[in-house]
């Protein structure tokens, strides 16, 4: 089980209980979630798509995501980026991430992220909100190895 899961806020755990229970057909209650919390929760669901290649704290087929917002593209030490990514001169923020995620190969031909993208603007916005939120999780705190890179 991920560290993020273990350290997620109570509201998020409650909402997930509701979601899982809902799939099982059980009736239960969860604390009401405001819109930003719902955005993060939905963003976490969208993030599952990324987990074929990415993790928050570990470099995998793709680089880790702790510290992504504000990081220069292609700058994780030791990670084998495509030349296109290394040459991109992008710094990841809401705008650049949104543009890239809408169609990675269209916005950055030559990238190794050979994925058709996240076509829905709300999905992208929620995913980015989740990444920002996850950056405050235990996995991404300064004591973790990923946060130090």
């Amino acid at each position, binding site marked *: 089980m991920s560290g993020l899961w273990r350290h997620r806020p109570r509201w998020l755990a409650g909402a997930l209980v509701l979601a899982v229970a809902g799939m099982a057909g059980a009736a239960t209650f969860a604390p009401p979630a405001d819109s930003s919390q719902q955005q993060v929760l939905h963003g976490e669901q969208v993030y599952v798509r990324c987990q074929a*290649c990415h993790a928050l704290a570990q470099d995998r*087929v793709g680089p880790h995501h702790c510290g992504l917002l504000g990081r220069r593209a292609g700058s994780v030490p030791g990670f084998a980026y495509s030349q296109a990514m290394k040459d991109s001169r992008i710094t990841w923020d809401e705008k650049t991430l949104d543009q890239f995620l809408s169609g990675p*190969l269209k916005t950055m031909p030559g990238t190794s992220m*050979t*994925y*058709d993208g996240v076509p829905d603007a709300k999905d992208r916005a929620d995913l980015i909100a989740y990444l920002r939120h996850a950056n405050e999780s235990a996995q991404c705190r300064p004591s973790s190895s990923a946060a130090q890179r």
Partner: protein
Amino acid sequence: MSFLQMPHPAAARRAFLGRSSGLVLSGTAIALLAGNDVLAAQQGKGKNDGQQDVQILNTALGAELEAIAAYQLGAESKLLEKPVLDLAVTFQGHHKAHADVLAQTVEKLGGKPAVAKARYDFPVDQLKSQADVLRFAARLEQGAVSAYLGAVPLFGNRDLSKAAASILGDEAMHWAILRNALGEAPVPAAFVS
């Protein structure tokens, strides 16, 4: 059908290995392994010049190699009980078959296949039980489904799209079985994303 009501995994694995050892591959895999001339003739007819197809295949190959290593980690963890262990080894065999086909196809297209990393940074400290290992594997398989789904429309060569869709189906079955083993709804929705 319940996970535990399945035919014995060892028998399933023998059946799989029996079929794959003779390289009785699907029509899709055969198409993938077609001669250079066939693949070459089809390159450039689609949305890219073939270099992008090689990159897509290599990214997929990198993920398959990671999955092989992840299942190896699970198999060696001593956390998996016998029926589940057999299933993990069977699924690892599928990933090896995917990786073999992908690597051979990259070579046929003139590319250099990705190779396994010397070391994978898995969250080993979070794997304390069989359920943890199953959940870890399920997350990787779900991600793989999304990755192949995101790759299918990108190939210039439609045979490669078909092959990726074939692998996607296999990954989706892995994901469903792992969810079932965890006591979760094996197929949680009508669509994958």
